[in-house]
């Protein structure tokens, strides 16, 4: 037997492309968010409320990732922002190469923030760096308060947790404090926001934080 030793990360190739994406964004002074959640947690609704709230304050562009259809890009296009849809055709996550390719079709002139909405999935997108500054994980109250313990990798890799659909709390057995504490036990440095895209509760606080954070720059 002969042995070839190769000490490197399995996803090294993805990480190299992600690094190039990150350099491109940083050189242009663009702050990039990677929105992740399980399907139906409210990523697109949260994005819509964010675009509405920051309209005229911060120029935002969007990269939409879905397994199939461009429904989300159509929703976002109504806000008159540059948007490009990635259809993964069955792929369960976005990777850095897909984002690099999508950037060829996205006008970044004067853009300050790019939001990448990942495929709805709390497992696979956790492993793939896209070149973002932060991952924003959205967990909705309807999913139960044990999500962070079931999917620790995603909550560990995120910088922000948005607990969405808080307007439904009176009808649910979920406890926001338990959800929050579970998330913080995995990642004590998570910045947590509570929102409702139906009543707009918490949206202003989240957007103000985002505006301040992206101006500070990495």
């Amino acid at each position, binding site marked *: *037997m*002969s*042995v*070839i*030793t*190769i*000490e*490197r*990360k*399995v*996803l*090294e*190739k*993805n990480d190299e492309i992600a690094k190039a994406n990150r350099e491109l964004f940083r050189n242009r002074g663009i702050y990039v968010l990677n929105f992740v959640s399980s399907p139906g947690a409210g990523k697109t609704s949260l994005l819509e409320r964010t675009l509405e709230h920051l309209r005229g304050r911060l120029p935002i562009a969007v990269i939409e990732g879905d397994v199939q259809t461009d429904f989300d890009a159509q929703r976002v296009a109504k806000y008159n922002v540059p948007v490009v849809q990635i259809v993964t055709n069955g*792929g*369960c*996550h976005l*990777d850095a190469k897909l984002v690099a390719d999508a950037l060829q079709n996205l006008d970044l002139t004067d853009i300050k923030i790019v939001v990448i909405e990942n495929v709805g999935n709390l*497992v*696979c997108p*956790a*492993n*793939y760096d896209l070149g973002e500054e932060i991952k924003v994980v959205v967990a909705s109250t309807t999913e139960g308060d044990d999500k962070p*313990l079931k999917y*620790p*990798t*995603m909550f*560990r890799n995120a910088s922000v947790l948005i607990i969405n659909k808080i307007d439904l709390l009176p009808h649910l057995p979920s406890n926001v404090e338990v959800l929050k504490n579970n998330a*913080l*036990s*995995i*990642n*004590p440095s998570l910045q947590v926001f509570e929102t409702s895209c139906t009543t707009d509760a918490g949206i202003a606080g989240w957007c103000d934080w985002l505006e301040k954070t992206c101006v500070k720059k990495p």
Partner: protein
Amino acid sequence: MHELSIAQNIIEIVMSNVPKDQLKDVRTISLRIGASSGIVADSLEFGFTAITAETSLRSARLNIEKVPFVIRCHSCGIEQENEEGSAVCASCGGIDTTIVSGTEMQFSEIELEEAV
């Protein structure tokens, strides 16, 4: 099922390190996978076998070393393993901890059978 795409990445690393005519001699591909990396070893092995079945890598098998999730507490200094991926120190309840291991997805070596 991103283990399939991880398996594809493993194959690409093998192909860029082993000459084409020796791919059929690859027997073992060793990896270190963290307990809290988000990768299921069985699924990765299954995916790897499925996509190499009809290729020159069909005799290759994955040898996966599972690395435990370990944190070090900066308050009480204790290093500890936990299966939950928790960042909270089980000894003092402190949250000033760093991850020592258990999130990696690392390639380590390829073993080839020497041609006789």
